[in-house]
């Protein structure tokens, strides 16, 4: 067995699961945020409490209902990630055992790790069944319509209930309690470390490790790492984009072009916008990014901003608790990156010949269908 290949395969399965879970988390988190921000105008800070269901004020009553909708959506997180991890491993047959296993994980409170395990167990069980059970032609359809869903679900549920469920629930609550119990310096330090990791390689393995962990903790109700990560994601592209606007002479025409794209990507929450800069002069760009991101994350978490959704783009900013602090933190981080970048870089001697070629559009039809087929 090739371990590196197996690792890559597992990563792909988990990313597939996360990719299908993200819209659910966003829907749920924003629905809840709307109800909580709305409730705060009425001075209510426990809108989920059953007493508001009978409120005389129709708006408050609705906000309570809306909070429930958010909860309904978030309740699907674990079943969906488990289902789609299993789907990634074993195609359609994995979905039923995966979704059922994920629901058990949710009810046992076995957390994100439990949901990952559930998806992988369901997926590989189904894959094994499909590969190793050979039925005569006439009875072939028994496998997908009966054996895979029943046996697949049974094995998955059995393993979750009696083997992994309880220890994983222990890990989940222990970790969550430890992180929630963090105060003062430790909390800020944790945020700064996450921020620095996110800023380090812009979508690479270190960044992904930090963001995925933050997302996992988000599902256990620990919000600091997510807040830190989401702030840090957009600081490098915004900071570098801003730097190209402030002082064009320090950047080649290609990088000026990349700077505009970088600003836009930063606003929609894509840290890779900063990649062209990191490739061109990594030793100047990476430290600036890490410092800026770490600082922004530390400020946001330290001053009490809470982002409950895995959204870093501007459209998520106003659903953040204490959004003014959040935006302030982004601003400080961004300006830090900008200032450090401008400080580190020297003016470039502008070569004008290159300008024409850089703006060419990517065009899917640079060849004709005839050329393609012959």
């Amino acid at each position: 067995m090739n371990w590196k290949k197996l690792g890559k395969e597992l990563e792909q399965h988990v990313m597939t699961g996360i990719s299908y879970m993200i819209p659910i988390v966003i829907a749920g988190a924003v629905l809840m945020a709307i109800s909580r921000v709305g409730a705060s105008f009425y001075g209510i800070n426990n809108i989920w409490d059953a007493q508001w269901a009978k409120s005389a004020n129709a708006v408050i009553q609705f906000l309570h209902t809306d909070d429930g909708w958010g909860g309904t959506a978030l309740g699907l997180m674990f079943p969906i990630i488990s289902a789609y991890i299993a789907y990634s491993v074993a195609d359609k047959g994995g979905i039923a055992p995966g979704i059922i296993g994920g629901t058990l994980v949710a009810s046992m409170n076995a957390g994100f790790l439990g949901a990952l395990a559930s998806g992988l167990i369901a997926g590989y069980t189904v894959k094994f069944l499909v590969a190793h059970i050979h039925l005569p032609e006439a009875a072939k359809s028994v496998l997908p319509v009966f054996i895979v869903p029943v046996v697949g679900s049974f094995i998955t549920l059995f393993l979750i209930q009696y083997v992994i469920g309880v220890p994983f629930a222990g890990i989940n609550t222990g970790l969550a309690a430890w992180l929630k119990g963090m105060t003062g310096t430790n909390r800020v330090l944790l945020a700064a470390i996450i921020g620095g990791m996110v800023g380090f390689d812009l979508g690479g393995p270190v960044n992904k490790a930090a963001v995925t962990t933050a997302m996992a903790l988000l599902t256990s109700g620990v919000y600091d790492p997510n807040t830190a990560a989401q702030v840090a994601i957009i600081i490098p592209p915004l900071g570098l984009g801003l730097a190209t606007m402030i002082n064009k002479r320090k950047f080649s025409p290609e990088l000026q072009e990349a700077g505009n794209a970088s600003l836009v990507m930063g606003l929609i929450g894509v840290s890779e916008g900063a990649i062209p800069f990191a490739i061109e002069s990594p030793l100047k760009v990476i430290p600036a990014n890490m410092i800026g991101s770490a600082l922004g994350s530390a400020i946001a978490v330290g001053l009490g901003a809470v982002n409950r959704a895995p959204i870093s783009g501007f459209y998520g900013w106003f659903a953040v608790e204490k959004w003014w602090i959040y935006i302030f933190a982004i601003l400080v981080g961004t300006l830090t990156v900008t200032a450090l970048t401008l400080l580190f870089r020297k003016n470039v001697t502008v070569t004008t010949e290159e300008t024409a070629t850089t703006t060419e559009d990517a065009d899917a039809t640079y060849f004709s269908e005839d050329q393609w087929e012959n």
Partner: protein
Amino acid sequence: MSRKLIAVTACATGVAHTYMAEKALIQQAKKMGVLIKVETQGATGIGNRLNAKDCQIGEAVIFATDTKVRDSDRFEGKKILQVNVSDPIKNAQKVIEDALALADQN
């Protein structure tokens, strides 16, 4: 005759990297005189879907994906280069060269 490749791009969120990788591959292929068709499996569905004929024509398939490729049975029996969605964004030339080298192997 030009070299021909096909590719699928997909990322976890399906809004940005998928399309950045597509753009990077097409721009680089154009520069290298390679014909490429890129299918994007994003959050809003599949773009520029590769049909059976495309799959047959492409000498090799580039999967620049962080997630499972949808309908991957279309590429059964093809030579497949699996890379991360961020690889072509960082260095499209290497990805395309690797794919061509893979196509030349027997």
